């Protein structure tokens, strides 16, 4: 047992860290919210370096790094404090196309995703279909070689920036097994009949939207995999390597900043200090748990099991805990911009235990898949 990185892995980490320190523009660091231009600027800097899609096959621009190197890279990226890499194209749509797409679809979309020419969003949730995603109702009926889409998606992150949306739609409402009537469809956001309406969250920020589809015509060539196989695609994506769901790097940065912010509380208030210590220890433990999963993947060559859901559960609890303590470092009645930003960050982070499969759904997954209940 050796919990330390090997000299090669350390050298790799230093190389990544050094590059990030020279190439991540200071004005892009630690902003809670980013404009489309800011997100794409950072995306393109990484694309130019050849590092924007490490996990892709080499022929499409992947780096050929092993799982540990990819993890180190993602952690350093988070720790550096730059804009997030928006996952919808890079780590959601692209793996789906690589696995199920036609050659034409790959050639058409992958290079544009890689270079940040298309901004993607994800159309999964509907007003009546959250955790029970398979109940979704947005209809896509085939007419003259096209699909005609009607319905509504909700909580669509950054749809107002997006050029494209990948959607789960119902192509057959008559089947008893409702999963079998779902298909995976790609839509141009400029298509007539698509309307995006902002949903402002409690921190006042515009991140998510409702997206309405009113007789939207989608060419049949934009179907991914076969008609009625959308659920298979969605499940593949769910089980696709998600080793950074714990967001260790970002939380390490938040922890370091919190310690600076809270230096006086740490000395004067042992109750606060102990809560911070427990969070720090939970983060140390999660990092090791994450590395244990990686090590297992590397040894067995198997994709991570359902128990990586625990990385999401613990990672988001830590993120929330850190922002809650930072909020508590402010005057409750403050009106200055800095204090309000810390308070609003606390509000904003409440979403993390709800999105991407709520933590309750993650527990269902572990109970069923890992514990056999």
């Amino acid at each position, binding site marked *: *047992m050796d*919990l330390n990185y090997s000299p090669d892995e350390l050298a790799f980490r230093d190389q990544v860290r050094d590059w990030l320190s020279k190439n991540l523009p200071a004005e892009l660091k630690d902003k809670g919210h980013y404009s489309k231009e800011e997100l794409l600027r950072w995306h393109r800097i990484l694309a130019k370096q050849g590092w924007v899609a490490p996990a892709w096959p080499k022929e499409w621009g992947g780096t050929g790094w092993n799982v*540990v190197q990819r993890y180190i890279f993602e952690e350093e990226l988070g720790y550096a404090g730059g804009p997030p890499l928006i996952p919808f194209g890079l780590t959601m749509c692209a793996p789906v196309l690589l696995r199920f797409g036609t050659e034409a679809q790959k050639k058409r979309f992958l290079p544009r995703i890689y270079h940040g020419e298309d901004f993607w969003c994800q159309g999964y949730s509907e007003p009546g279909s959250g955790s029970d995603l398979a109940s979704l109702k947005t209809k896509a009926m085939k007419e003259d070689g096209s699909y005609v889409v009607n319905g509504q998606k909700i909580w669509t992150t950054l749809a107002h920036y997006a050029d494209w949306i990948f959607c789960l739609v119902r192509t057959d409402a008559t089947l008893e097994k409702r999963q079998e009537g779902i298909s995976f469809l790609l839509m141009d956001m400029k298509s007539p009949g698509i309307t995006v309406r902002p949903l402002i969250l409690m921190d006042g920020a515009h991140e998510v939207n409702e997206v309405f589809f009113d007789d939207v015509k989608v060419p049949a060539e934009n179907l991914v995999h076969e008609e009625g196989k959308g659920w298979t695609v969605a499940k593949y994506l769910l089980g696709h390597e998600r080793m950074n769901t714990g967001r260790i790097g970002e939380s390490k940065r938040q922890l370091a900043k919190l310690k600076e912010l809270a230096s006086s509380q740490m000395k004067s208030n042992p109750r606060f200090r102990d809560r911070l*210590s*427990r969070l720090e*220890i*939970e983060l140390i433990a999660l990092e090791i748990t994450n590395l244990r999963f990686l*090590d297992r993947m590397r040894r067995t060559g198997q994709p991570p099991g359902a128990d990586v859901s625990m990385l999401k559960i613990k990672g988001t609890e830590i993120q929330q805990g850190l922002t809650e303590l930072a909020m508590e470092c402010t005057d409750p009645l403050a009106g200055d911009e800095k204090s309000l930003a810390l308070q609003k960050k606390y509000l904003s982070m409440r979403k993390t235990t709800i999105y991407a499969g709520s933590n309750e759904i993650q527990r269902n997954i572990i109970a069923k898949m890992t*514990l056999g*209940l």
Partner: protein
Amino acid sequence: MNFDYSEEQQLLADSVRRYLQDKYGFEERKKIIAGQGWSDEVWAKFAEMGLTGLPISPDYGGFGGGAVDLMSVMEAFGEALVVEPLLPTLIAARLVGRAGSDAQKKTILPAVAEGRLRLAFASSPRGKVVGAPAAGKLVVLDGADLHIADAADVKMEPYRTLDNMAAGEVVVGKKELLAKNAKAHVDEALDFATALVCAEAVGAMKFACETTLEYLKTRKQFGVPIGAFQALQHRIVDMFISQEQARSMACLACSKIDSSENASERARAVSAAKIRIADAARHVSQESVQLHGGMGMSEELKVSHSFRRLTVLARQFGDADHHLERFASL
């Protein structure tokens, strides 16, 4: 980076686990507890498997192993709720190995490795000492100095701890000096012991989680296994998560004991581990009893005994509050 046990570590862990499964079942353990509180036969077997000599230097008949080597053994001990005082013996042997003279080491360490001598560690000349009734010699901290005493020179009132370990209220009489100003050695040995207690607790938690899962799958109410209820599913998932997080910290503590050159880095890792393990032990033990319902309270089920052990391990060598204080000071 490598989180695997080496082949030797794995083989040893497997053979210890197999032996405990075959010969150290709940009923056998009960008999040992009803008797003198430890089994000389089991101890001889531990010695034969190399456990008593594992961390002792090869110069004195041992195998020169470290905390990581012992981790899998302690985990297996935790699963089986072993009551034989291996840990007290190994703490004391570590102190002799680090602080004693060559002559002292020669008399004591080979006897420990061969299973002929058990030891215990007394943190003062008067006080409670786990493992004392079974020990032939006691290593005694008196102020800053370390001594060694024969059991014959120790007055002792034997008793049992909450988790059925044989312990004694001791008053040490005649004793021989091991080393003066041995504080650094004692700190190190206590960190070593704390890391191993963490590993033992992980084993006990593993048992508690697995037996509770089994119960959820077999116990039926309202016509279905109670594990079909989401309220219980989420709680047992959280138990398993606690156990995994605790295991990660036990790995960290044991590997820092073996690899860290720096005392405060080592102490910080050990305290962090003990805090997480104390929290997890409390969580897992309490939930394991609750999810068993009335049966969890019964002395007839092993889960009530893992509860007792976890309650002690959570606080032995410093509870969470103690280690939070130390963690913050480092």
